[in-house]
């Protein structure tokens, strides 16, 4: 565990909690001075005028929630929280517990609201694929007809819990073309494109809520001992792209199955603890699942366990590894690094509604746990939590984010609810380090009101934040000692037409001088090359850039060869080779 990056104020007395926290106080005291210096501590409260702290980022624009998707009488109303994001072209789709918004981000400095839909039923997790928008609904007030009056009866044909599918060919006039009901509703969902199947897209549905009565949805069974139980599984929906109205559940893989016995409740290793105790205890639901189709893997957080799934057959995922945290963190979501050699799990302790970043809260709880992945086995390496203590009026815990495509490094922009946005470098999984942040003061000075970043994601050069109460934030990275302009520019070269944050795609950098320069900056920062070599390489790159054709190719090839020789004496040989490979790419592209 990397305790150096986790700084806590001495514990305040909190009655009974002081019994546990007493041990913490002595350890944290030397950190008090550093804690006082973090500008995120003690920010003024407010909805749109809260104090702000920002480092190595710029807040490029911010837009409030539109009418219909917030409650003016109660800005913290749970029914109107903004939730997750998806991107396609110049459109940003922002989910909300009461529907969704479409923002035109052609100019990220001035987003405009293109359209919105009021269609209640949290959490409103959204994904986009072509002209289809998918939305998760789990709450019992969800209605098939999108009405806002809720559903009173425990079993009713008017209720909807599952995944809605909208045709957004005309983004100003979305049409719900399918509403796939599931037994537990959909807390979140993950799109799984099958590289071998262009006609369909698959949707993994994570249901964490109560199982519906069979009177409401036929075939739903809640009893865990029943072989047809709706527990212990995820649903897989297949969506024919040419006929999305035909979308339906095609399998319900029992991802918790015991590998030897096939018993559905395989991950539960308890014994017989008396009558009535078995039925409620097992690992029976998954929160977020992140897929990385090019690796054939998905990482999930299921009832507190981290799990790894083989998804090469998307309709039939199979569990290949699982891990528990010895410090009793329970995981909710996961992110792979680009190479697929590291997974960052998050412990969303308190579900995002509680303040868990106080000075008294443990550094390993409500935090990230980072694992290395090798031969399909997970091994714990480190923890990360934002180092600035947040107030008791700020719901705060690790939540959603995505990778920033800086070549050669594993960097994530992550949301921490009212803990704000934190950009963390986890290239060394045992020593994660924060390199940028943004934070506001609490929504309300006196009371805990829901707010903060639900998810912060990189998309085509900017970081977009879905702010639960304040709307949409757009950020740009600024260079610092931790991140150079070349690295930022190299990241901006990675462009995609669509981004659904729970679907990871392999980031690839084109042949470009700025990519090579990014590696040089990294080698300088990490002393992987002597200062003299750094200058020499920079000069040579500059000279080669002014050449063209065969001359350029020759210059670059010679440079790459020289750099390869540096690898032998470097403390970071792998990075030196990344540099030479980037220079060879340039040589190959020379015209």
């Amino acid at each position, binding site marked *: 565990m990397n305790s150096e990056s986790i700084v806590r104020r001495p514990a305040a007395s909190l009655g009974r909690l002081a019994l546990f926290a007493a041990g913490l106080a002595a350890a944290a005291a030397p950190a008090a001075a550093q804690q006082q210096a973090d500008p995120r501590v003690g920010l003024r409260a407010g909805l749109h005028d809260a104090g702000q702290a920002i480092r190595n980022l710029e807040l490029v624009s911010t837009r409030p929630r539109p009418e219909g998707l917030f*409650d003016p009488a109660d800005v913290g109303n749970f029914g109107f929280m903004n939730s997750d994001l998806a991107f396609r072209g110049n459109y940003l789709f922002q989910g909300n517990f009461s529907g969704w918004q479409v923002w035109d981000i052609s100019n990220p400095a001035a987003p405009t609201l293109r*359209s919105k839909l009021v269609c*209640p039923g949290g959490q409103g997790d959204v994904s986009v694929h072509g002209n289809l928008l998918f939305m998760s609904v789990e709450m*019992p007030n969800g209605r098939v007809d999108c009405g806002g009056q809720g559903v009173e009866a425990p079993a009713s044909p008017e209720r909807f819990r599952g995944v809605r599918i909208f045709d957004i060919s005309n983004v100003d006039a979305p049409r719900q073309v399918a509403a796939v009901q599931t037994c537990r509703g959909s807390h979140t969902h993950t799109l799984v494109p099958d590289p071998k199947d262009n006609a369909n897209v698959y949707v993994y549905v994570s249901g964490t809520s109560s199982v519906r009565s069979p009177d409401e949805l036929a075939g739903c069974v809640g009893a865990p001992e029943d072989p047809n139980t709706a527990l212990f599984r995820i649903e897989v929906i297949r969506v024919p792209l040419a006929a999305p109205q035909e979308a339906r559940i095609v399998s319900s893989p029992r991802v918790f199955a015991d590998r030897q016995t096939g018993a559905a409740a395989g991950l539960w290793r308890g014994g017989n603890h008396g009558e009535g105790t078995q039925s409620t205890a097992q690992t029976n639901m998954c929160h977020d699942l992140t897929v990385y189709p090019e690796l054939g893997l998905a990482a999930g957080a299921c009832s507190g366990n981290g799990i790894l799934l083989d998804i090469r057959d998307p309709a039939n995922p199979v569990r290949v590894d699982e891990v528990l945290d010895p410090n009793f963190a329970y995981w909710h979501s996961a992110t792979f690094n680009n190479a697929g050699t590291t997974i960052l799990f998050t412990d969303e302790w308190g579900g995002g509604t509680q303040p868990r970043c106080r000075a008294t809260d443990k550094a390993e709880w409500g935090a990230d746990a980072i694992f290395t992945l090798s031969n399909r086995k997970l091994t714990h390496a480190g923890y990360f939590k934002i180092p600035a203590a947040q107030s008791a009026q700020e719901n705060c815990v690790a939540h959603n984010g995505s990778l920033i495509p800086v070549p050669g490094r594993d960097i994530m922009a992550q949301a921490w609810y009212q803990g704000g946005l934190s950009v963390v470098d986890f290239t060394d999984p045992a020593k994660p380090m924060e390199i940028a942040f943004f934070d506001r003061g609490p929504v309300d000075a006196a009371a805990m009101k829901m707010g903060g970043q639900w998810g912060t994601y990189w998309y085509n050069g900017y970081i977009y934040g879905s702010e639960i109460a304040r709307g949409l934030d757009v950020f740009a990275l600024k260079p610092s000692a931790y991140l150079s302009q070349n690295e930022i520019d190299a990241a901006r070269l990675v462009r995609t037409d669509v981004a659904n944050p729970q679907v990871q795609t392999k980031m690839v950098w084109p042949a470009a001088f700025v990519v090579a320069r990014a590696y040089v900056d990294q080698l300088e920062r990490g002393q992987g090359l002597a200062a003299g070599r750094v200058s020499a390489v920079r000069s040579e790159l500059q000279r080669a850039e002014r050449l063209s054709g065969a001359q350029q190719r020759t210059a670059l090839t010679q440079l790459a060869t020289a750099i390869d020789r540096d690898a032998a004496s470097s403390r970071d040989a792998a990075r030196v080779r990344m540099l030479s490979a980037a220079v060879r790419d340039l040589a190959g592209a020379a015209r």
Partner: protein
Amino acid sequence: MQRSSVRMLALAGTIVAAVGCGGAARQASAEVARIDATGSAAVADTGRAPRPGANEADVRFMRGMIGHHAQALEMTDLVPTRAARADIRLMAERIAVSQHDEIAAMERWLRSRGEAVESADAHQHHGAAGGGHAGMPGMPGMATPDEMARLAASTGAEFDRLFLELMIRHHEGALVMVAALLASPGGGQDAEVYQLASDVEADQRAEIARMQRLQNGPAPAPRR
């Protein structure tokens, strides 16, 4: 303020925060489209329909859960001076922090709906299985006063064993209460109630699984 020039599908107007009686007259928007069996249709103006508010089942759940949590805190209070194992202390600390905060959230919710909030101590008396005032039945999974006394009188390995047994049962009781809420008419239609109930469900379910592992003894060292 941004003005969008394109047709809005939902006219916002003024959103009425529908709180209080679930039986208030509902004025459904006249233009809500009929959705056919496949769930497809153009979605129309739904912004004017008032939202479901809190109802009896929600209030009962919140009140009950406060008392239920209070007993869990009574149990975790005993851990620092009686438990033998470090992993049990860690488990207890996590439970204590979670449930302490949840009590505060539930009390906030009740106050915001104009409902009375009793002190946590009063709740402990009401909620204890087999004890308390007439007409106030014990809640699922609660320990009896005898069981609590036995727990308080034990130390070391015996305490650890009893603590796990009682807390697992206590957690299972919480899950029963959540299930009962979501099975009752209108229960959990209020977004905040639903969220809190879901969080209790998620965290306590994971904790039950972990406690059952603890019952098998201290965990082996994790893979490194």
